């Protein structure tokens, strides 16, 4: 891991080493960091009928003076218009519900895999990872066929005589939660597994031998030991889930409003790049805290 440098002789503290770091560093500064600064800049502009469709911040006045114009109207807009506030609130709620249910569903699965013999762990883990490799879009789309009024679930239940008219389980809040829990489950299972697997299982046996009941062993030994995995998994699910666009759009109803969809619509439907940028800046600000916790946690030996 990030232990001692392997080459300490002067030969390698050289240009070559500098270049090795500089190439990827330059790439990420150009394509990941710089874009955020541009987004922040454009969020202070206003939309215009031009290419690109926003007013430049710096321009020349009639008398030849250099003029810098910063608009904070976009920020006023997103903090006063209830549409944006509702979108932020519902995105946060979606992400929080997703974390809770992926944890409830993922913990037993991760524990089960980690408690198997070494021979079984890799194939079981592969079974969890396979859906993650398979097209996300297609898997979310498949839920439409399962949940719709004449879909798999409703037809089966009607055929069995359990219900006589279809349940409304598509295009509402329920289907959004279901789709999100489904899509983000592997992101929860992997970090949980990697921490549970490293756990000293003899501690569980010791607690058991000393007469603790299973519930108590779990509460007082397993749970505290796997806490770093729970934190890592929750952040790995929460951060991308707040900005999720595809699932609410495909599985949500007409009243489903999320920050991802708000940004998308401002950009693609209204062609208002500055407002879309403002929405993006507000979202990034919201996620800085969770991102820093994640970064610190991974720095101290947690695995993604």
């Amino acid at each position, binding site marked *: 891991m990030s232990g001692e440098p392997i080459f300490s002789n002067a030969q390698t503290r050289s240009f070559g080493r500098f270049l090795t770091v500089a190439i*990827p*560093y330059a790439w990420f500064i150009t394509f990941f960091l710089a874009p955020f600064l541009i987004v922040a800049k454009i969020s202070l502009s206003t939309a215009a009928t031009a290419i*690109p469709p926003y007013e430049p911040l710096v321009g020349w006045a009639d008398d030849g003076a250099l003029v810098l114009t910063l608009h904070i109207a976009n920020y006023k807009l997103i903090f006063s218009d209830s549409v944006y506030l509702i979108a932020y609130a519902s995105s946060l709620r979606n992400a929080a519900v997703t974390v809770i249910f992926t944890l409830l569903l993922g913990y037993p699965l991760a524990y089960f895999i980690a408690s198997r013999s070494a021979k079984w762990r890799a194939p079981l883990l592969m079974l969890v990872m*396979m859906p993650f490799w398979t097209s996300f879009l297609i898997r979310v789309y498949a839920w439409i066929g399962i949940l719709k009024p004449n879909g798999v679930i409703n037809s089966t239940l009607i055929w069995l005589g359990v219900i006589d008219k279809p349940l409304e389980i598509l295009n509402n809040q329920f289907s959004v939660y279901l789709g999100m829990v489904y899509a983000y489950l592997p992101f929860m299972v992997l970090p949980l597994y990697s921490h549970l697997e490293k756990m000293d299982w003899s501690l569980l046996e010791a607690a058991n031998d000393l007469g603790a009941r299973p519930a108590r062993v779990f509460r007082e030994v397993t749970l505290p030991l796997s806490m770093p995995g729970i934190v890592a998994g929750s*952040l790995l699910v929460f*951060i991308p889930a707040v900005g999720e666009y595809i699932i609410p759009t495909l599985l949500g109803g007409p009243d489903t409003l999320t920050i991802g969809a708000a940004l998308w619509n401002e950009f693609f439907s209204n062609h208002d790049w500055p407002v879309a940028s403002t929405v993006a800046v507000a979202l990034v600000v919201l996620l800085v805290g969770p991102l820093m916790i994640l970064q610190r946690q991974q720095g101290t030996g947690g695995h993604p």
Partner: protein
Amino acid sequence: MNAAQSRFLLVAMSVLALLFLYAPIVSIVIYSFNESQLVTVWSRFSTKWYAALLHDDQILRAARISIEVALLSATGATVLGTFAGYILSRFGRFPGRTLFSGLVMAPLVMPEIIMGISTLLLFVALEAAIGWPHRDIQTIVMAHITFATAFVAVVVQSRLSEIDVSIEEAAADLGARPLQVFFLVTLPLIAPALMSGFLLAFSLSLDDLVITSFVSGPSSTTLPMVIFSKVRLGLNPEINALGALIILFVGVIATIATFRTIFADWRGKRKVETATA
């Protein structure tokens, strides 16, 4: 609750979670063979939607673009991700290390919609300033390399952490120059991880919708973009067939990637054991 009951509950919940993960995949494959236009009403077995796919020029063109983008992106991400993973696991401390690891790893979790809009605005600003790049396949590839590199870096870093540094130190002590150590010792040892990383980057690129929608140009519509626009209009039996094919294709890639890792893991450990014995 006694031990036997809790063990039963654990198994039951794990099976439930796995069924949940696989239900949509199974359902889409079954319905892709459904003759009915109605998508979710089963009539009888048919392969006509697969045949229809072969005559859908829009889908075929998009598939070709997607595969081209995925090959280029995966190649770029593998090179860059190997650099990044190697630096993070072997370079120790250097000025700006915290920022570097943050920049490499942030795309793992950063909402795609943020990366999409910010990368596009960069390309637009660059084009306005220096006339490059035009929005087409090249902009998609650059954006995909940026997010897929993180995944390759994680795979490479975790592989490197399993390999004993003393092997590389021995080569250095025996007079190999850093580049020789890297290409003759480190690279062969992490080759399986590079393969997995490449395949992971390939499938992520092939699947990406949100970032691609922002940075693509009018002539570079990818497969997920076509699927998304069709799906938003409602269920489409052709998409079931296409979905089943993608699942098969990516499933094979995933199996190769993970089996290779598991196998190479075992073989790699043996090699190291033999080498250090």
